[in-house]
């Protein structure tokens, strides 16, 4: 048996490998969540992932695909609804986030033949990482990182000042769509590790920790990935040794790192 099979045959190593893959994209995307103040938006998409799972069972398509499609649809609905200005965006997000979660749970309860591990879906499951999941994670990560690299300058400019970017010919609307697609992908793959309720934490906490030390936007991205790695490996190790739930353990580790960095390091000059 070669070394790769040895690693992939062990569920702890599979989970760790998957977690690192998730952190690789959660870091950069998390920076955009922090910069563009999308925390609540991310939460809404993550909650709607459960609806996606229920729908995938209903029409029997792969779970990841169902989640990606549902997240994209909810994201588009949000953009269109917020344009009507009938309700404040945070109210709208609150309605959609919890309705999507509730509809997902109700739909799942109508399918008695399908046994799903609800706790695993909500809080992540260390044991659930299959080889196929790894394929999804690294496939998704490759797509997201490629998109980020190609669109980086324009994404950054439209994040810094949307109107200025628009006047300079940056396709602001299309970039917003691309960013949403990336969110949907990240949520679909991160769900396995931390669960739908805690995905936003994995996006925000490493990025916020990185801000304290970062000198440039790229520096912040890199640091967010590193802090994500620390959170995932620390959390999964905790989960493995103390039999704690995977998702919460990862988030607790991320939070401790955040406290350490904010307590120990001076604010970046930039």
């Amino acid at each position: 048996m070669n070394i790769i099979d040895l690693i992939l045959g062990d569920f702890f190593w599979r989970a760790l490998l998957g977690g690192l893959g998730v952190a690789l994209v959660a870091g950069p995307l998390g920076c955009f969540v922090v910069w563009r103040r999308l925390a609540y938006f991310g939460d809404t998409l993550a909650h709607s992932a459960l609806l996606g799972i229920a729908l995938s069972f209903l029409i029997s398509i792969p779970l990841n695909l169902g989640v990606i499609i549902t997240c994209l649809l909810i994201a588009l609905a949000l953009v269109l609804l917020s344009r009507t200005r009938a309700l404040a965006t945070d109210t709208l997000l609150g309605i959609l986030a919890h309705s999507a979660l509730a509809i997902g749970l109700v739909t799942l309860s109508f399918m008695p033949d399908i046994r799903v591990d609800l706790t695993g879906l909500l809080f992540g499951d260390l044991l659930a990482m299959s080889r196929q999941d790894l394929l999804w994670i690294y496939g998704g990560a490759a797509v997201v990182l490629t998109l980020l690299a190609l669109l980086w300058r324009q994404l950054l400019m439209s994040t810094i000042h949307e109107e200025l970017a628009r006047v300079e010919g940056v396709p602001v609307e299309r970039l917003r769509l691309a960013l949403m697609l990336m969110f949907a992908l990240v949520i679909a793959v991160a769900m396995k590790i931390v669960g739908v309720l805690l995905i936003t934490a994995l996006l925000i906490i490493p990025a916020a920790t990185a801000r304290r030390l970062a000198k440039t936007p790229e520096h912040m991205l890199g640091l967010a990935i590193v802090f994500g790695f620390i959170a995932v490996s620390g959390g999964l190790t905790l989960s493995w040794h103390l039999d704690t739930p995977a998702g919460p353990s990862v988030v607790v580790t991320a939070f401790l790192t955040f406290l350490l960095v904010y307590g120990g390091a001076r604010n970046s000059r930039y």
Partner: protein
Amino acid sequence: MPEHLVQLNQLTVRFDERIVVDHVNLVVGRGDIITIIGPNGAGKTTLIKTVLGIQKATSGQVSLAPGLVIGYVPQHLSLEATLPLSVKRFMLLSGRPLNACEAALRRTGVGHLLNASVHHLSGGEKQRLLLARALARQPDLLVLDEPAQGVDINGQAALYELIRELRDELHCGVIMISHDLHLVMAATDQVICLNQHICCSGHPADISHDPAFIETFGHQVAESLAVYHHRHNHSHDLHGDVVTGNGPHGACNHEHH
């Protein structure tokens, strides 16, 4: 290069049922400085946003000269403090080479801030940074939305003077919105008083006598402007500037030549 940089033809913008910009005609050519004034909610920002292509017109046309490069100075630079950004990086994101960026920063008087964080700049420095960024693009048209906001009173006069100099150096057109009535009046060729529609327009010296202007801004403002403007005309002449215009002021200028 065609004669007109921008031509607005019966431009109308409606938000739901409310008319924000009402059948506005406007022509901006090279070397023009056009200042838009008007009360709050008069549609000033909406008007320039249609020129910038950010806001769609409900009816009427906006025609821009082909290949027109616009330098835009937004109302204020509200930057997300969570995004670490240096002045240098902000300038480089314009896509212009470093030496062009440095030259533009020096021209607007903030060359020494190249390595500073954009989050630590004062209001005046931020406005000069925005102006430098617009300048780096070598624009044919500068569009400024209340460029002197958050700048102290001495800085304001200097900023408007700088805008005028840049117009001469780049030979570009300038459209700006301003509330600093008498400062702007001194540095502008044409004033447009907007209140959804164009109430009145013309040379600053003439417009302060216009009944429509007096109705919108009151007698006191109109009189103080007339006085201020007169003084400034004289200092222009000492510099050798030619102030175009007719009426008593035009005649006054010629006497001094």
